[in-house]
């Protein structure tokens, strides 16, 4: 009885989270344009999707920015984490404050402050400014996922490697890096997803000429979203789901082996 209650409670909460997604996917298969009326099954929005220039361009912007920003933030952040870890206490706490500051700042303030910076230094807002902004808000997340791994690491392993004749660079690549790689990968994936989903910071750091999917959706939200956008997000959703399942499957396999 108690177990039934627990399960139904969790089911209800999950239902609440999934209802809009189910609605969205249904709409993408709706033959009509109306949001609420079902006019029969159709794939027309999926075929229209690939001919829609604005959406394809926004998709290109979103994906390239997410990939470049995630890679840049991972390099920058991993180096920074190794550096911060090796620091004395005082400079370390200064660096941590600087890392935490953008994470505690509301997105809207981050976005606006960068907009002011770009306008102030007469840099035209667009693709590059959006990319710079994304690298900026991603890097602290990478640092915060790498640092715990560095702290967990036994520091004698590194010293042992040196004693056994490894050069510091060799030890860094072959001892430290493999140890912290789970943190690096988590940080990179986190940066990628954050970048993919960001709206507020992109909104303030780009021009209407260069839109990512979020700002495109925003500009259309008041006129009415076309079902093509629903089709696109349904596809992206499925792609991510497939990715997760393969990763899980692989992880399961290696765990067994």
């Amino acid at each position, binding site marked *: 009885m108690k177990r039934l209650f627990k399960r139904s409670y969790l089911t209800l909460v999950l239902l609440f989270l999934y209802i809009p997604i189910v609605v969205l996917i249904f709409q993408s298969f709706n033959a009509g344009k109306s*949001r609420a009326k079902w006019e029969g099954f159709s794939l027309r929005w999926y075929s229209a999707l690939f001919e829609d220039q604005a959406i394809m361009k926004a998709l290109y912007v979103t994906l390239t920015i997410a990939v470049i920003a995630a890679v840049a933030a991972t390099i920058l952040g991993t180096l*920074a984490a190794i550096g911060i870890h090796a620091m004395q206490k005082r400079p370390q706490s200064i660096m941590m404050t600087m890392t935490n500051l953008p994470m505690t700042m509301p997105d809207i303030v981050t976005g606006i402050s960068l907009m002011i910076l770009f306008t102030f230094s007469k840099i035209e807002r667009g693709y590059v400014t959006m990319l710079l902004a994304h690298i900026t808000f991603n890097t602290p997340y990478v640092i915060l996922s790498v640092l715990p791994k560095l702290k967990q690491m036994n520091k004698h392993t590194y010293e042992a490697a040196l004693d056994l004749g490894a050069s510091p660079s060799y030890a860094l690549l072959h001892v430290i890096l493999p140890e912290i790689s789970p943190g690096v990968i988590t940080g990179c994936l986190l940066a990628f997803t954050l970048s993919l989903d960001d709206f507020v910071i992109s909104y303030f750091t780009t021009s209407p000429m260069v839109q990512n999917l979020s700002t495109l959706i925003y500009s259309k939200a008041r006129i009415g979203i076309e079902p093509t956008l629903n089709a696109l997000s349904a596809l992206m959703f499925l792609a991510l789901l497939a990715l997760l399942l393969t990763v899980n499957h692989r992880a399961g396999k290696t765990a067994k082996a």
Partner: protein
Amino acid sequence: MSQSLNLPGWVFWLLGLMLLGMVLLALVAVRRTNGIKRSYFSAPYTLWMVLFTVVPVLLIAYYSLTDANGAFTLDNFKNFWDSNYSVNQLYAQMGPEYAVLIQRGTVNIGILAYSLWMALLCTVICLALGYPAAYFMADREIKIGSTLVVLFIIPMWMNFLLRTVAWMTLLEDQGLINGLLKALGLHGAQLMYNDGAVLLGMVYNFLPFMVFPIYTSLTKMDSRLLEAAQDLGADHLRTFWRVTAPLSVPGVISGISMVFMPSVTTFFIPRILGGGNTMMFGDLIENRFLTEGNWNVGSALSLIMMILILISLSVLRKADPEGEGGGIV
């Protein structure tokens, strides 16, 4: 593609050079660790953060303390306190007979109070809904806790703007819920464009951020403590209040800060689900900057927002001094 993005070519060069520089620096650092102190590895990051975080924040502070001509002034903050400030100044100059017209405008304060109230409601609802969910998930009887965590994460992969727009389909006058109500022979209701709809959208978007940290703190708990409490004769309720609840405080604190903060500053949700009938502090800031182009007042508002957030975070941190709550990671 680069032509259609309408950017001067040098920007791409600059960007490419920066990325190349970073990679080179990484390589050099790795090759020559013997020569370089490892703490220098964070130099590029430090430079980056100074350029893109510290300087921008200082710029906000600069704009908030100057007027349109760049002269020092506190008017922007007075404008926050009294939204009729500039008109009132005019009346005061025009002579004593106009003094009766001077009246403090409460628009900004009102919007701030409204945002704080909505954020508070959202946080309370998220806690009320999310705590039991996290508690049941962490329950060993359920066994599929980690799968459930993934189920909570998956919805967040769908663009949150689209998910919010999808609620419109459900809530609007001709929408699914009203359709269902009418099919049952009941009256339809006006569900959109009010506080309730905005609140629903906020709870919907921020609920997972309450569930995750609480779940994490509950799973970290030593289960032997519960057994000990039961052995010592405490019943379920007593065990919960005296053992489980206190141990989950760090997760709750972390959840509260992760829900409250974005709630105060959200500006998309009220615009879509509130339909412009409601304005929150985030809207106000965006409005000052992009609609009115008044950077000085906008900066003052942003600064006030930031200080409020920092104060509330430090209060919350007092309640969880060790910062054990952690984030989603």
